[in-house]
């Protein structure tokens, strides 16, 4: 009897545990799934996205299996004539006409190209001539460089089972799965093209493409610089102010502190308009009086300086500084140590944890800032990644796979920072509970 009871209790306990874990894991899945879906979509081709394939082929081994080794292909050149393809057989119904880029050429070729006034990357016109759906391997196509027709072969789409359509129908997909062609020698009569397959490029192709299409290199660099500048400012100014509030006596201390805290209440949309007006006036002032053009608009100043006074950080640091025992200061005072030296040599080394919280939190906020940068930047010079991404999401609205690659590029630096510092992060949030 008692045994039955205890097994029932144990069963009940187990069921409760199972339920708890079920709910917790469900919550985690909901929190994480959009990110996973984003990454999956960012690895798809346009076709896979449109056909609602849940799993991108790039994540299977199919595209990378049995890739032929690098080979040098000697192609014959025919002088081009109007309307013909140099005697080459041209299909009546070409499956594709399009351009592919040739990214690198060897030094002698580059020289020759330079003489003709061209430089890599070369846009090469290609025309898929004959396609036999039964044959595995490569189909012949022809491309032209300058005034010459080059016979070349292209990769067959049917790289493995389950491929839905001949992939090179879609020019971008051809670019993704096709070989990289490097012209290594262009003898007047024999053009030597080196054909290599690039599995990495096949995998992260969308990332590479959106990186260049939206100039993410510049946006990322801007965001890194802006984050660095504003975090440095926040750390210096907040440490000084927090120290004054925590450890120094001066008239009006409480009133000033209350005024500081009151600014936390202000919504950004209220201060947005007057701040923009202020920045415009500062910009005009600098131009007229100091003869510096664009000192504020389209510059790091407007993007970082208003955020350098962070009430949140002052509050967080003050809480910590106030806990440092007075005896330490009294001892330091006897050694003839002033406030600044005490702050630098005693307080700061003791405050690594809250400082880390301040750095991490402000870093992330600065990286994520959107509305203000959107308003005060009108060109690329200092435009941060969030604004760049919002522009890109409009431009690439139809190419969702590229858009998701862009979103991932924006998120990844934050994720890396977060995974290394998540303890400071959640604790910083939980102890002060600010910034909703």
């Amino acid at each position, binding site marked *: 009897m008692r045994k039955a009871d205890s097994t029932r209790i144990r069963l009940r306990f187990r069921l409760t545990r199972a339920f*708890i*874990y079920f*709910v*917790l894991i469900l*919550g*985690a899945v909901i*929190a*994480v799934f959009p*990110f996973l879906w*984003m990454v999956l979509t960012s690895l798809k081709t346009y076709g896979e996205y*449109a056909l*609602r394939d849940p799993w991108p082929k790039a994540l299977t081994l199919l595209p990378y299996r049995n890739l032929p080794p690098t080979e040098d292909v000697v192609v014959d050149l025919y002088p081009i004539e109007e309307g013909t393809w140099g005697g080459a057989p041209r299909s009546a119904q070409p499956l594709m006409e399009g351009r592919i880029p040739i990214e690198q050429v060897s030094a002698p070729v580059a020289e020759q190209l330079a003489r003709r006034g061209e430089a890599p990357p070369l846009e090469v016109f290609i025309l898929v001539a004959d396609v036999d759906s039964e044959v595995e391997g490569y189909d012949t196509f022809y491309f032209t460089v300058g005034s010459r027709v080059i016979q070349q072969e292209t990769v067959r789409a049917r790289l493995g089972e389950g491929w839905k359509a001949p992939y090179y129908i879609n020019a971008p997909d051809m670019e993704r799965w096709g070989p990289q062609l490097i012209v290594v020698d262009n003898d007047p009569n024999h053009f030597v093209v080196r054909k290599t397959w690039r599995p990495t490029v096949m995998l992260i192709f969308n990332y590479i493409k959106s990186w260049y299409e939206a100039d993410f290199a510049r946006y990322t660099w801007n965001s890194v610089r802006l984050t660095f500048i504003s975090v440095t400012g926040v750390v*210096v*100014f907040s440490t*000084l*102010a927090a120290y*004054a*509030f925590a450890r*120094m*006596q*001066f*008239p009006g201390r409480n009133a000033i502190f209350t*005024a*500081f805290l009151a600014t936390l*209440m*202000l*919504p*950004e*949309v*209220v*201060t*947005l*308009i*007057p*701040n923009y007006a*202020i920045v415009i006036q500062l910009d005009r002032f600098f131009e007229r009086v100091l003869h510096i053009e664009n000192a504020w608009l389209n510059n790091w100043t407007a993007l970082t300086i*208003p955020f*350098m*006074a962070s*009430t949140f950080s002052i509050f967080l640091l003050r809480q910590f500084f106030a806990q440092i025992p007075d005896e330490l200061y009294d001892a330091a005072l006897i050694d003839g140590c*002033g*406030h600044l030296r005490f702050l630098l040599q005693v307080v700061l080394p003791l405050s690594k944890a809250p400082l880390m919280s301040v750095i991490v939190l402000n870093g992330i906020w600065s990286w*994520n800032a*959107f*509305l203000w940068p959107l308003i005060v930047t009108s060109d690329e010079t200092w435009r941060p990644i*969030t*604004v760049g*991404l919002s522009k890109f999401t*409009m431009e690439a609205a139809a190419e*969702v796979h590229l858009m*998701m690659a862009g*979103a991932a590029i924006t*998120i990844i630096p*934050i*994720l890396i920072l*977060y995974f290394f510092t998540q303890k400071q*992060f959640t604790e910083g*949030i*939980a102890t002060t509970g600010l910034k*909703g």
Partner: protein
Amino acid sequence: MPNTTGVARSPQERARGRGARRRRIREALEAYLFLSPAAILLFAFGILPVGYAFYISLHRWRIQKGDFIGLANYTRLLGPSPKVAMLLVGIGLLIGAYYVWRAISFQSGGWQVGLRAILAALLIIGGLTLVLGADGMVRYAAEERTVRQYLLSVLRTVFYSAGTVPFQLIFAFLLANLLFQQIRGRSTFRMLYFLPYITPTVATAAVWRAIIFEPRQGLANTLLSFLGVAQENLPRWILEPQGVVVLLGEWLGISLPEWVVSSPVLSGPSLAMVAVCIYNIWVFTGYNTVIYLAGLGAIPYELYEAAEIDGAGRWQLLRHITLPLVSPTTYFLTLMGIIGTFKAVNHIYIMTQIVGLGGPQDTTTTAAIYIFKQFREGNRWGVASAAAFILLGIILLLTWVQNRVAEERVHYA
């Protein structure tokens, strides 16, 4: 400094006093020096702008400053001043009623009767003026487009708060309580829940817009058709301006009366707004969970032990210990959540970018988006500032109410 004690000081003491005083002055000066960078910046970009915004709101201001027009920008948004004044007086009287009600508990005898009478009068008059003022504004709004747009944007903000804050809190409270059990991998769960909050809004909102709420390929609709909820006429989410009540009625095959369909209140928030709400809940549930966890950690464990000895069940523990003792956290999160929905611009901006900011058909134009649109698209800085100022007033009023409620109802451990 006059010698107040009347006892003559020795020269050394006086010197020491002077030294201490000089040290104090020095310290104060040094403190101001330490404070100055942060204080100057906060003043320039935090406090000064509030006054400046008010100044702008009193002018016709379209990029360039125009004529002084007094409160015209406000009446443009709220309707004619008598009605608005009635509304404000009503609110003021109700606030007064609150203070009288507070005073009653400290008084006794004859005073109490008188105070009760005053309270009743204040409540009735205040309530009446409030309702009449609001009614007048609504009537006026039917005629005046600008007033209607603004009041609708406030209504949508209310929808937005009501559609997000309760859900955030319930989910977060549930998750925090479960996490608070003896759980393996607690910090991993906490880290994962927090992920949506720290990642850039621009990126996550783009993700939700493009691959979850996308009507044809999106995950939400794929899931719906997979579950067999609907195969055709799948919801258009962010593209759908129709109210959810109307949509639900259509889906269930109930024909709703015309006055429900045409009423902006009864037809409910648009499906686009619901999509924005779902995104918001996804972002903030994790943040609220972390704060709740801190709140739960602060409850002394002895209370639970004592209650268990008294034979309290799991449900009773939750009802009588956990809920009252985390109520400060709940109130804090409610306030932050509501203020958050009043401020929210970024994710609505990104999510409705393709249908036009605040779209479709303006149904996601909350008060904050309205301000932003007036500012950026209409270039009406004066109107935008006036709207921002009204928003600030609402936020301050909410904070005040929240604080009063918190004082009455929250049990501080």
